[in-house]
């Protein structure tokens, strides 16, 4: 991400830049696709013995327009969020923080997942993608005779 100050000597922008540099210096071996932190939509990934669960915090979307793909162990979530700004001379925007535009996020999955057993549910603006692990990879108890 290219840093550009809107106004030189803007204290808050400077603090923002310092914070970003600070985090970058902590992450000495960043992921090849960047850390992705701070992008839209935020993602949480959880892992259990049976599945990998991905939670995508993408509110206000039409589920039909969200594109979820798995290819070669890489999960891609993409889509577009359009915020309609009232086209009215009388309207003034005081705060505009919500993301608008096209987005794309990529998550690399573990090797033992089953690409044919994927479920995706969208509820309350939260997309939950569940990817099952392959049967053979699940832990088994071996009986001792």
């Amino acid at each position: 991400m290219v840093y550009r100050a809107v106004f030189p000597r803007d204290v808050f922008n400077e603090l923002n830049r310092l914070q970003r540099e600070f985090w970058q210096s902590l992450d000495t071996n960043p992921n090849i696709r960047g850390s992705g932190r701070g992008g839209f939509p935020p993602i949480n990934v959880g892992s259990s013995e049976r599945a990998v669960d991905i939670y995508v915090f993408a509110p206000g979307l039409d589920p039909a327009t969200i594109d979820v793909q798995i290819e070669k162990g890489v999960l891609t979530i993409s889509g577009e969020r359009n915020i309609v700004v009232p086209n009215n001379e009388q309207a003034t925007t005081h705060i505009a923080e919500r993301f608008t535009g096209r987005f794309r996020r990529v998550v690399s999955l573990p090797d033992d997942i089953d690409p044919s057993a994927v479920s995706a549910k969208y509820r309350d603006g939260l997309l939950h993608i569940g990817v099952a692990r392959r049967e053979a990879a699940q832990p088994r108890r071996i009986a001792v005779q």
Partner: protein
Amino acid sequence: MSNTNTTVAKQEKDLRDALIPAVDVIEDASGITLYADLPGVAKERLSLQVEADVLTIEGEMDLGLPEGMSAIHAEVDAPRYRRAFTLSRELDSEKVSAELTQGVLKLRIPKKDHAQPRRIAIEVN
């Protein structure tokens, strides 16, 4: 006394553990519209409060986490949202209406009748 202390401590903890939702605030002639991104918050877990002139939005997330799951990457690291705004006097806090659809809250705060724009006729003698 100890009771007040625990309440204060609890409030401080809640504040620390809460995410600040992104909002859009648009004002037009008849009032203010606020949109807030609250992904994961169901209608029943959303609380809106106006006390004195402070509007507080609070929401708890319901992730429905499966058992035995451990987080391996977390960008959203708190289970709740909280944000407060100070309203100005011309806004009618008794007539606030709210809608929550797919994690987006839409709040409409109308202006009081006397604060609605009026064209003032200038009389020329």
